[in-house]
């Protein structure tokens, strides 16, 4: 069954879109990632104009994140205090990121910079996480002892705060800094940043994996809601009909994802996320190195 989309101006299959929303929603509930880094290329692949894909998928992520965060909230897996700190950093970071994006554009080759940083970034994060979680899975077979992180320089920073849900007593500077860095990245790469935020919370802040997922979803709601409004006002790029189809699938998928996540151990969750991150890394790497079908491609007159 086909439906013609008013903003995207293409005809798409309803069930394909529902299925895509469901799949990405599942991953969102499971890992605490928005799924934008998967959904955007998928939407572009089925013929949605890139600008509409970015704007609309942000709107859908608002829905699946809310659906997921409520499911996690019930289990006490959302650290709102930590989420707010990350968000403060995120707002600063994304504002700076937009400025940096404009600056890099004047230098030219912004696309290449983005893609190369993706490959390097995802490659490193994915590999480290994969190795770490596989090791953790091996060890956990013999009654895993709770890991205590050694004290280091980071613990000497001022403005210490207690994050009860995360069982942490750390300087507020740390989550704000993580928020800033992820904010810069998401402004440049045009994604919510969940797949960068989640590993950063696990490895840099030392939060328990279960709390990371819920807290990440919490802050993603605000980031993507902001993107939705900005895209509507500046680019008229949110297709409400497409968003509606995506989020019907998305909110249901997110519920199943959160349920499935509760059955998995932290290290199992991490190894799956690592594989997904590596998969995206390889995909972008191939895009850069494989010969395209046609070396001439239509550009947009508006720019990226």
């Amino acid at each position: 069954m086909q439906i013609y989309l008013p903003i995207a101006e293409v005809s798409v299959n309803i069930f394909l879109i529902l299925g895509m929303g469901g799949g990405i929603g599942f991953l969102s509930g499971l890992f605490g990632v928005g799924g934008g880094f998967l959904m955007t290329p998928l939407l572009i692949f089925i013929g949605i104009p890139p600008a509409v894909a970015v704007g609309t998928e942000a709107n859908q992520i608002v829905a699946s994140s809310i659906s997921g965060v409520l499911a996690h909230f019930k289990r006490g897996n959302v650290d709102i205090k930590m989420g707010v700190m990350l968000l403060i950093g995120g707002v600063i970071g994304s504002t700076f990121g937009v400025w940096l994006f404009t600056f890099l554009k004047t230098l030219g080759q912004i696309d290449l910079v983005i893609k190369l940083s993706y490959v390097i970034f995802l490659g490193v994060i994915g590999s480290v996480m994969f190795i770490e979680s596989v090791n953790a899975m091996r060890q956990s077979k013999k009654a895993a002892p709770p890991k205590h992180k050694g004290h280091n320089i980071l613990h000497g920073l001022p403005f210490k705060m207690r994050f009860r849900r995360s069982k942490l007593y750390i300087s507020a500077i740390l989550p704000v800094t993580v928020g800033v860095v992820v904010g810069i990245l998401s402004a440049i790469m045009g994604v919510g940043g969940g797949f960068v935020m989640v590993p950063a919370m696990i490895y840099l802040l030392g939060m328990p994996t279960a709390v990371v997922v819920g807290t990440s979803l919490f802050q993603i709601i605000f980031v993507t809601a902001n993107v939705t409004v900005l895209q509507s006002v500046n680019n008229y790029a949110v297709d409400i009909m497409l968003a509606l189809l995506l989020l019907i699938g998305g909110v249901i998928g997110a519920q199943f994802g959160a349920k499935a996540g509760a059955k998995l151990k932290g290290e199992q969750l991490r190894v799956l996320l690592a594989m997904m991150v590596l998969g995206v890394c390889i995909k972008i790497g191939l895009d850069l190195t494989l010969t395209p079908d046609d070396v001439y491609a239509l550009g947009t007159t508006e720019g990226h």
Partner: protein
Amino acid sequence: MSQIVRILALLPVLAALFAASPAYTKGLEVDLSKPDVRLDVSFEGADLLLFGAKDHQGDIIVVVRGPNKDTSIRLKERLAGIWVSTDEVVFEGAPTFYALASSRPVDQLLPADVLLREKIGTDRLGLAVKSAPKDADAATLKNFKDGLIRNMVAQNLYTGDSGIIELIGQHLFRTDLWFPANVHVGGYVIDTYLISDGQIMTHDTTQLAVHKVGIEAEIFSFAHEHALIYGLLAILIAVVSGWTANAVFKKRG
């Protein structure tokens, strides 16, 4: 008094008759099976029948052009094993849609200079360069132009090979026009030529509107006229549906 009113009321009809009659004296009449292409919820592309009558012996060429738009085309090159977008050329006002149909191959019907002048055929679009790299020569620009046409053909927006016009007897002709689901909205122009002995005997221009109707049109105009409210509404829908899904699943346990 009432008679004058009656005559005045008839004036537009008379005007229409006079306007139509020169087309007839040209010996060519063209019409479409539908006056417009309507993009509604179930739009999957549209088939339109173009039909007409001519009073001369001769062949027919039909050219359909969509609204013009500045179109950029980028070249990718391999640098150190990585494909990088390098040069960009912007063509001014390239048609967003171009379809050609004829009763015989066009190069058998008209001399090359006339085809070029009338912009008949995708390789004779007469695209003007708006911006290009400083060192671009004619051959480079031709490659970009060919690249643009290849990309548009791949999207079914340009017809690669020309369609067929059926001649029925001496006076009638018909052809099917296909508009894919990714057509741009706007004013389309359909030019019909009557050709005889390598010359254009006469020529007709028909306008065709491609526009959104119903909910498609309403959503589109709302998104453009009340962008902020539209964005907030989109978020509201997201919040409500996220909440609803959670509530439904909570009940089920």
